[in-house]
């Protein structure tokens, strides 16, 4: 892995990726009545202000795609910036996404972390789709340019209170196969994040929300955080906007 990713700087890696994505559409003919028909979608599921135990922050979690029924280029990004301070967490993933069943896509591509430093590039393999009982799930495995292996499992659900008032529970678990001390990651389960957001869809594509988010570091990761004098858990009250186009 090191030989592939290590020798390029981050900008070169992204440029390489950008050049690579269009080639994905060479796989297979388009599925629709009008050949070559491409669709696009972008959704910022969370763009929010978090009132944390410590310093408040601005957080985002968004994804989008371009493609057809069977093949898509997929973008995922999430991050956190304290209200007064530098970006603390920030990542972007560019994936090729292929339909493998009625409800699931297999995805492969790369992830790049701006923060926390030192910068990392990752190879990504993911399964994303709709599980029975309407759970949206996203399971991703990552291998960094240093050869570190980690995984993330996310699940969310939309509970309709009315047609426009929707309660969205979310859960996220991060795991690592080894510890990466300089990034504050221990081996095993790193952390768990649970969220509950209540949104009102003024339009399908525009919904302000309020909610809570609770995060707790676990095991070695928690030990590392304690050593750094950081809290191992955090409860935030969030307010934000979900939008798409």
């Amino acid at each position: 892995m090191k030989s592939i990713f290590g020798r390029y700087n981050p900008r070169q890696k992204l440029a390489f990726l950008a050049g690579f994505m269009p080639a994905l559409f060479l796989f297979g003919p388009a599925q629709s009545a009008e050949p070559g028909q491409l669709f696009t979608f972008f959704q910022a599921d969370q763009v929010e202000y978090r009132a944390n135990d410590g310093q408040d922050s601005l957080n985002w979690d968004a994804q989008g795609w371009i493609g057809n029924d069977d093949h898509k280029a997929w973008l995922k990004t999430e991050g956190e910036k304290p209200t007064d301070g530098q970006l603390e967490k920030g990542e972007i993933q560019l994936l090729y996404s292929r339909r493998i069943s009625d409800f699931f896509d297999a995805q492969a591509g790369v992830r790049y972390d701006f923060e926390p430093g030192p910068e990392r590039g990752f190879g990504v393999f993911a399964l994303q789709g709709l599980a029975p009982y309407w759970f949206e799930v996203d399971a991703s495995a990552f291998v960094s340019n240093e050869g570190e292996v980690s995984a993330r499992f996310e699940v969310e659900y939309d509970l309709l209170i009315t047609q426009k008032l929707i309660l969205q529970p979310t859960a996220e678990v991060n795991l690592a196969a080894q510890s990466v001390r300089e990034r504050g990651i221990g081996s095993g389960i790193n952390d768990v994040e649970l969220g509950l957001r209540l949104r009102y869809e003024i339009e399908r594509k525009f919904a302000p929300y309020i909610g809570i988010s609770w995060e707790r570091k676990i095991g070695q990761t928690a030990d590392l955080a304690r050593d750094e004098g950081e809290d191992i858990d955090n409860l935030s009250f969030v307010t934000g906007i979900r939008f798409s186009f």
Partner: protein
Amino acid sequence: MNKPISGFSRRDALKLAGAAGIAGTLAVYPGRRSFASSTKEYTLNVEAGRIAVDGVSSNAILMGGSVPAPTMRWREGEEIVVYATNRLAVPTSIHWHGLLIEGVMDGAPGFNGYVAIQPGETYTYRFKLRQAGTYWYHSHSAMQEQQGMYGAIVIEPSGREPVRADRDYVVVLSDHTQEDPKRVLSNLKADAGYYNYGKRTLIDFFRDANRYGFNTALKDRMEWGDMRMDPTDLADVTGYTFLINGRGPRDNWTALFNPGERIRLRFINASAMSFFDVRIPGLPMTVFSADGQNVQPVRVDEFRFGVGETYDVIVLPRDDKAFTIFAEPVDRSGYARATLAPREGMEAVIPEQRPRTILSMADMGMAHGGMDHSSMTGMDHGSMAGGAMSGGAMGGMDHSKMGGAPMAGMDHGTMGHGGAAAEGGERRPFGWADASTPPGSKALDYADLKASTPNSDGREPNHEIEVRLTGIMERYMWNLNGRPFGKDEPIRVAYGDRVRLKFVNTTMMAHPMHLHGMFVELENGQTDRKPRKHVVVVPPGKTVSALLTANEPGDWPFHCHLIYHMEAGMMTRFIVEPKSA
């Protein structure tokens, strides 16, 4: 002439038959008015424009200067020439829906050697009318129907009309959206439930739990959730204004009559996506023609029809009062309304909208504990369930979990019928088929349709073609036999073949299946008088079959007439190989 052009009486029509310049850019040049083979020439310009619906202005594509396009009033045996000029910036086409016609004149780009009309170009359609009845014409390109490219065709028979009428009105139903259809499809691809504002909520759950018990309500949610299917998915698109002859409910298109007159109404479902339940409270309708083909008269209080279908009815208003023509889409997201009145300005009460139904497990082709699939006769329900289950959309389901009984209770209760079906022992529809028809009212059923003349080809079919209607709602993928248009395997039959088309609907939506170029004979329980149709509605989870004599050579489009389904790929090529020499 400030009356809507489609609203003149037959007497007016005759007076106007030779008049030129209807609605601006439509020019009518009557040829020699000799009896057998006169030629009529028309110029139809297709251009972008704006229309006003209920006082709200929006973009539209105008064909012949208006929405709907001018009504074509023709006579069987005539030769028709239409110069169609494309004044749009994109290709267009005009398809003559239901006409028996040479392939290249049928107007579907990519089929029969017909090429879309490019911007600035004119295409000359030339065909001889081989039939009579009510039909329509519309674009076959890029969802332009949704933007207003549709109009009625009325063809007088060369012989006698099947019924006498004092007045003759076209009633074109459609669904109008302010959104660009490409945007609509894009929204559906990103979120299939984007337009569904009738989903089941927590509040519905507590109501059901209260009525049927917590466990029953939960089990029901779990069954649907397990399949990742939504029982409220009745219409993919909402936000529509429903139109009659281009007029919204407040515009209130009005047709005049004198009490005691016989009025012929030619209903055409020219919508992009909507199935309508149509009624005229206080005025029974006698259906005597379906898809332009005469049937033995059936007296009904209401009928449901799918996109592309037409019904001709006679009504006899005796009283000096107004009547409302009321058409509700199955998802009840609005209504179309017009008025039959003795004088301009009169109105009748607008009825309350009926409740919205909810799909049942039977709509998935599941056996349903002794309940009946009443709207379709002559079908093999056992094999139907099997067929549906083999469809890709439902892979991995466990039959044993699909208990019918608790669901039956739920379905009826949710719709407020309080189990009437069970008590009365009456066969009444439920799930998709339930139009909330009040007891004692008669709704038209496919089984009621009986051709007015015996079928000409009495042969048994020499082979059967199974057409599975398939799709994945969650991804808004729609196709036939699991393969979208472009990756499909065309259907091939030889000229003169007698075939059975067996539609097996594996999806939870009803699909109005349209074959160009030929009529099929619906196997609805009639023996030698099967009704002839150009659109066959296949309800969710059901199997419907039809016979066909392949006597029109060509490669014909064969597709679901829901426009976003067709655009998503629910289409194939039906090839009738020419007679070999």
